[in-house]
């Protein structure tokens, strides 16, 4: 690594001002766990890092809404998510996913905003938040806008965030009545990047599925909602035969990428198996009240 400027704006507006440039060697820095690896390997050589640690405590708060949703500040650490009573109550699947993400030290410093903005399709949090119907609040030189987590990624390590734009919060809609699960499959060692991630969220009323979200990650170039699998689930009984049909639909729909963790065919088979397990687990774990 070489010398660069590390600056500490004291407000969101100042941070956006510092980032409002076409110079791509100027970047926001939250927990730094992803950036440090890119800097150490020389993939990224910054001229200026804009540290977001002092933009204000409000950006690391986690609050439950009376309606049954959540607002998570982008500077909340992954450890804060893991242990937050609000997250455990409103979105237990998020807290559970943290226990298999990296390790205690990384979770202690990595932030929700950095996790989402990094755009690595192997990461665990984006598919979970997408399945829960989450969106991000984005602030930039032109003002603020909301982007659904499922629409945040435009390519491998690419997001739709524009010049000077920062993620400020994650917003989850009411989770009441939804049953959710996330499973990942690592093929080489337990702590490897996953070959496949699958997140599901179901609304079950009177034994039938009234709404479903199915998201696949890691095996695809960007996280992807599997809409034909969702259609196979919607309106059907929450049982084995419905799940089997949804898994076949998912396998036909998902565009798997071959890499060192497995061939496309292998990952398609993993999807059949893991989607069924995730659906079964969501039903077993029951709905959020």
């Amino acid at each position, binding site marked *: *690594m*070489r*010398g*660069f*400027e*590390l*600056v500490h704006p004291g407000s969101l507006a100042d941070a956006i001002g510092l980032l409002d440039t076409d110079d791509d060697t100027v970047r926001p820095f939250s927990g*730094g*766990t992803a950036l*440090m*690896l890119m*800097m*150490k390997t020389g993939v990224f050589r910054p001229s*200026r*890092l804009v*540290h977001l*640690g002092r933009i204000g405590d409000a950006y690391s708060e986690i609050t439950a809404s009376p309606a049954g949703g959540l607002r998570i500040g982008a500077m909340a650490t992954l450890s804060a998510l893991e242990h937050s009573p609000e997250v455990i109550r409103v979105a237990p699947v998020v807290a559970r996913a943290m*226990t298999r993400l*990296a*390790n*205690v*030290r*990384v979770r*202690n*410093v990595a932030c929700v905003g950095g996790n989402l903005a990094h755009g690595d399709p192997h990461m665990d949090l984006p598919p979970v938040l997408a399945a829960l119907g989450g969106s991000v609040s984005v602030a930039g030189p032109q003002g603020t806008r909301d982007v659904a987590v499922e629409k945040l990624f435009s390519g491998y390590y690419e997001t739709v965030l524009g010049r000077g734009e920062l993620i400020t919060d994650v917003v989850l809609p009411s989770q009441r009545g939804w049953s959710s699960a996330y499973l990942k499959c690592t093929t080489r060692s*337990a*702590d490897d990047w996953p070959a496949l991630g699958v997140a599901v969220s179901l609304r079950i009323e009177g034994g039938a599925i009234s709404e479903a979200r199915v998201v696949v990650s890691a095996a695809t170039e960007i996280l992807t909602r599997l809409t034909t699998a969702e259609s196979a689930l919607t309106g059907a009984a929450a049982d084995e035969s419905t799940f089997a049909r949804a898994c076949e639909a998912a396998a036909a729909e998902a565009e798997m990428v071959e890499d060192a963790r497995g061939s496309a065919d292998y990952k398609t088979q993993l999807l059949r198996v893991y989607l069924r397990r995730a659906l079964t687990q969501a039903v077993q774990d029951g709905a959020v009240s």
Partner: protein
Amino acid sequence: MDASETVKKIRFTLNGRPVSATVESHVDLVDLLRRFDLGGARESCGQGLCGCCTVVVDGVAMSGCLTLAQLVDGKRVDTIEGLDQTGALSPVQQAFIDEGAFQCGFCTPGFVLMTHQLLERNPDPSEPEIRDYLAGNLCRCAAYPEIIRAVKSAASRMRASAAA
């Protein structure tokens, strides 16, 4: 602040002592500690995976190899060298010795600091909880069975002395 500075003077508390240092922006926390002759946090993987570089900043464990030195400005930094400043080994250090929880010892400072973190938060961890918490610490000598015994032993010693 002069926006063009890459070198900065920082002040922080190191194992209870106020100190200062002039550091370049790209220096990481392991290298900063080396300037204070502290070698307990050492870089091995350099990628956040192994825990050999564990440092506790404001009470929170992090990987020194992934931490920019300038970010500890104004903070409290605790390393393995701070544990026995009273002259006595910490209960975790003693338990690691008694259980023979190391061979070469390269990973030991990280395991000891992480064990203190675990026991502060959970004084009576189950074996799965110990394994989960220490999953980000790697021991090339594979002293894992002894390490887990040492953590359990330290936990019961610390509970006993807290009750006394």
